[in-house]
């Protein structure tokens, strides 16, 4: 669905990507994690075609995004971190924009707004940042585009809205859609994403699906000093040492995205060897 080959990108003199290759398939929700300024948003903007690679090739739905063809743009949607919505009522916004998205469903849009507790008669400019974001997310999902890119979607959402967001996204995914969510608020996406890609300095530090991670890594509390020393990552807590270790005994352990992220960033090579060595 999306293939990125040998992507090079720079902002003036600052190099962001230096030969990045990556692919995204339909039917998945991808979590794009990384520190601020590592290129997550830049990657999404390259995929939607608002930025152009200086070298390399991106193919999305068979189109070259940089050409910004209407046929591609009506099947791809981006919810940017800094977004703009015109100063109109929700009804007007929908009547002006929905005709451009052939798979838009008014019924779904109404359902999502209800889920988010947004009154439909409101004007967008009267709304808070979080409410506007929920309208945009509802619209994006109701467009039913094959590609949905979301940059820090949970930023600005309150605690209740974050869980509503997870519920809405989980219900909206199907086998034909590819959702890529870029975030550094990893806790917000737990139990939602099914593949995790961690980017740092324009390189992929880690790219694995949730099933492989849970079968090959263990996230738990340990009181064993020897085990703690050998762990990929350890963190002291009131309950003991929270560690990330190879899942040697095939035990069930809930993935802690924050710990995984820290383990990869601080000890990426060791973490990745587990995925290379084990069958």
């Amino acid at each position, binding site marked *: 669905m999306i293939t990125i080959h040998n992507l090079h990108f720079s902002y003036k003199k600052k190099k962001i990507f230096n030969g990045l290759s990556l692919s995204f398939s339909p039917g998945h929700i991808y979590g794009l994690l990384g520190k601020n300024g590592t290129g997550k948003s830049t990657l999404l*903007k390259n995929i*939607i*075609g*608002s930025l152009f690679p200086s070298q390399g090739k991106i193919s999305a739905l068979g189109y070259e995004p940089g050409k*910004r*063809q*209407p*046929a591609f*743009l*009506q099947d*791809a*949607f*981006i919810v*940017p971190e*800094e*977004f*703009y*919505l*015109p*100063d*109109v009522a929700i009804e*007007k*916004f929908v*009547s*002006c*924009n929905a*005709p*451009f*998205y052939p798979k838009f469903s008014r019924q779904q849009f109404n359902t999502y707004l209800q889920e988010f507790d947004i009154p439909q008669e409101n004007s967008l400019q009267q709304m808070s940042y979080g409410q506007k974001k929920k309208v945009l997310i509802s619209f994006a999902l109701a467009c039913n585009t094959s590609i949905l890119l979301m940059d820090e979607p949970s930023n600005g959402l309150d605690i209740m809205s974050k869980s509503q967001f997870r519920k809405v996204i989980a219900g909206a995914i199907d086998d034909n859609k590819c959702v890529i969510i870029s975030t550094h608020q990893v806790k917000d996406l737990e139990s939602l994403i099914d593949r995790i890609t961690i980017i740092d300095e324009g390189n992929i530090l880690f790219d694995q699906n949730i099933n492989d991670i849970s079968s090959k890594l263990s996230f738990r509390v340990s009181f064993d000093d020897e085990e703690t020393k050998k762990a990929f990552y350890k963190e002291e807590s009131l309950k003991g040492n929270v560690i990330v270790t190879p899942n040697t005994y095939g035990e069930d352990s809930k993935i802690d995205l924050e710990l995984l992220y820290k383990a990869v960033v601080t000890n990426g090579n060791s973490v990745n060897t587990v995925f290379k060595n084990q069958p």
Partner: protein
Amino acid sequence: MTANFSFKRIIQLIGKQWGENRRMYLMSVLALLGLLGIVFGFWAANGGSHYNEESAYIIGLFGLFITGAIFASTAFNMLGSKDKGIYWISFPASHLEKFIATWFFNFLVFSVVYLVCFLLLKAGVESYIQVLIDKDPVKYTYKRLNWNNKNGINAVLPYFISAFFAVQAAFLLGSVAFKRFSFIITIVIIAAFLFYLFTMFQRSPTVH
């Protein structure tokens, strides 16, 4: 009709642009009426006792130049901000379609609206002048424009209109090219270009 050009999409884009900006457009019409009203009011109050229709047209043409340039310089200001830019760029229509929809409002609709506002206010001022003439026909006069006169404003009108097209195009381009202060930067560039042309003509040898 091609993948990048569809009349249906252009009509939809025009509808979207009107729907999302109509408040701003209506406010602009009021501002335009106010601005022209002030200039015409000033002319009516300080124009002496012998009024000339040609002066009204000169006011109108200069107003068209200035307000047209200001309006054109805002045409693509969405591209100057990150959030509006991505909203505009990722919207499912081709660049040509987006340009046509923008041009439709910033040039075509603007020119028609300006003309209507100008003629309305001109008619209003003419009514006022007529009242003055009716009161004191000896003191006040109003000279109508003779469109058959080859030395009047009608002689330079085609050049003025062509220059208006050129200035509009320059300010539209400026609104894409410059993120901030596009109006001022475009004026500076046009002034520099005109100065360059002027010096070139000055230097060129004259044939005797």
